[in-house]
């Protein structure tokens, strides 16, 4: 039996990798995928807790998180496509309109 902490540490590492992806990548799509990695890291932790507490509720949360992730992907990709249409690029650094 693998201790639950192993899964939690793994989940933490995956999460950190996702964060790293968001902060160092310039490619919007990769940033987006990094976010998916973070969501999945959280999911893994939830599943691990669920197993450890012998409660099915965690599975429901994961289910809902996946649904939200799907919605997010659909909208996010639509945004990316529109950005690309306007700027011919998906480099995150080209979108700095917030700068004065």
């Amino acid at each position, binding site marked *: 039996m693998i201790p639950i902490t192993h899964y939690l540490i793994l989940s933490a590492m995956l999460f950190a990798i996702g964060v790293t992806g968001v*902060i160092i990548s310039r490619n919007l799509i990769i940033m987006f995928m990094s976010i998916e990695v973070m969501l999945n890291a959280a999911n893994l932790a939830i*599943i691990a807790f669920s197993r450890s507490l012998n409660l099915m509720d965690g599975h429901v949360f994961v289910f*809902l998180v996946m649904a939200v992730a799907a919605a997010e992907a659909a909208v996010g990709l639509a945004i990316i496509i529109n950005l690309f249409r306007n700027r011919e690029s998906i480099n995150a650094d080209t979108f700095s309109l917030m700068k004065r």
Partner: protein
Amino acid sequence: MLEVIIFYISALIAIGGAVMMIAQRNPVASVLYLILSLVAQAVLYIQLEALFVGALLIIVYAGAILVLFLFVIMLLNLRGEKFGYDQGKVGVATKLIFSLVLIFELAAVVHTVSRSTNLARTSEHLNPGFGSVPPVAELLYTKYLLPFELTSILLLVAIIGAVLMARRDRADKEKEMT
């Protein structure tokens, strides 16, 4: 023994896949590595007796979401655009250090929590049917009915939003043409 081996191999693939995903310059390769990582995670799910959710992970992520990513990458034909990482090596190094600190902090939190509470103590006996479809369904339609319905509304809104954003361009074009 076998399950320990499976765990470490899957964990390695999951982490390696994720790392390779952000290290790639080519988005298609990124998608492939992410799929690899997800498949490894699905194995971990199954090891945690979460059969249904594990299958769902593959169906939803690999089967739908990442195909969508690939589709978009191909649609935009991003082959030509290569991306560097950052403004200089110092920047990247700082950010990597940030991430490392984050990992250590998260590990510390896990450690403290597992030490101070018995929250992380694994229960050896599982309810029969744990991880299969019926109990998930039962929870979804009873205890979590409201979140479930809200999620479905969210999905609907997302669909409408995505369609709208994709359509707008066409309408503009028609306007330009007339």
